């Protein structure tokens, strides 16, 4: 028997898919903000003066980088309640994604900070800026502009990886696909459509990041 593709279910499901895509974008937006904050602090700590803190950040990076995201997610969502930390699926997903992404972006941000010439900080201090202000206003924006393309790639990789948070029943795009195919029995078509939605989302996020970067960090961003 020849199998015929059937997309007739699609029109009735566009709303659910759009909602799922919106949740996926929300997840990655939260992850980006929290993850970037952690990685700026982490990268600074890794270059800081306390040895134990440098060690701690190093260990965190190695542990996260050498274990699968899905295992981290299950550990946080199923494992932590047994020591009394019970999290909502959405919160667990954002926490797992943030911790995962930060382990990668700590190195990226660190490389950016190293790439800013020392003279920039010295000039800022010579102008009478306090060290913290010099870091926030002079060094950090330049570092971010340098690493912007790498950061964008990392955000897109994380967004694609976030499809597995459907496994702890967060209603994002992949979970909507699971629910739809269970209802329509059109598994292949459903996942095909959703795969292309993810493809469109990653193209859109890349484009959006470039526009945002140009506005905030100036023309240096490509």
């Amino acid at each position: 028997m020849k199998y015929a593709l059937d997309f007739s279910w699609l029109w009735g499901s566009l709303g659910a898919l759009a909602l799922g895509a919106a949740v996926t974008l929300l997840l990655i937006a939260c992850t980006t903000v929290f993850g970037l904050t952690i990685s700026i602090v982490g990268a600074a700590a890794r270059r800081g003066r306390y040895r134990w803190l440098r060690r701690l950040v190093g260990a965190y990076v190695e542990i996260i980088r050498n274990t699968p995201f899905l295992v981290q997610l299950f550990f946080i969502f199923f494992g932590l309640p047994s020591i009394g930390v019970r999290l909502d699926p959405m919160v667990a997903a954002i926490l797992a994604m943030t911790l995962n992404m930060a382990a990668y972006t700590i190195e990226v941000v660190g490389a950016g900070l190293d790439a800013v010439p020392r003279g920039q900080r010295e000039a800022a201090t010579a102008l009478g800026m306090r060290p913290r202000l010099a870091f926030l206003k002079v060094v950090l924006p330049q570092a971010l502009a340098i690493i912007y393309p790498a950061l964008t790639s990392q955000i897109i990789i994380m967004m694609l990886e976030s499809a597995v948070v459907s496994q702890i029943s967060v209603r994002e795009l992949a979970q909507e696909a699971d629910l739809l195919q269970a209802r329509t029995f059109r598994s292949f078509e459903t996942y095909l459509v959703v795969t292309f939605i993810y493809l469109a989302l990653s193209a859109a996020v890349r484009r959006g990041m470039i526009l945002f970067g140009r506005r905030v960090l100036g023309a240096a961003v490509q």
Partner: protein
Amino acid sequence: MIEFTFWDILRNLLFATRWTVLLSAAAFAGGAAVGVAILFARISKAPWARRFGVGYIALFQGTPLLMQLFLMFFGLPMLGLRIEPWTAAVCGLTFYASAYLAEIWRAGVEALPRGQSEAASSLGLHRLQELRLVILPQAFRITRAPVVGFLVQLIKSTALASILGFEELLKTANAINNATFEPFTVYGLVAIIFFILCYPLTQYARMLEGRAAFR
């Protein structure tokens, strides 16, 4: 009811680890074979082949691995193939790996000086000989560090095969967790096992990277 001791849990997980290792090895071997084919397309002289290579890589790098696995799992039966989770996982991970490996090797090919390929053709080698004897050996050698780095990513990605129902490490852990209700121990151990698999490779990649920078 059967009581699970800590050692029972650990033993079962270690037994399941061989499937994770086997799946990683199969996907890496398959990915390398398909990856070379994609690399040929990507660096071909024919524009349509290059466009195919670019599109293939963009497709697999721009969509979630989980969706790729689902498409294999539900798509292959439509072609009349009987499919088990193992087959779907190996096929899905193979295509996924091939896109990344082709892209890594392409970077290696492009990093070689133009003179290499010009010298090869001036010696009268035709394109295939040129690639096989001159270009690829060098490209493979300078990309060893990122390839090992990708192998780590691939090993971690095999955890997704548990969602298709393949009995590797994580799927076994889910089953044990359902029997013992000790998620903290079970998933903690799974994380440790994955760490033991991946960390030496990460260090090896770092060593290769250091050596490349030194040269």
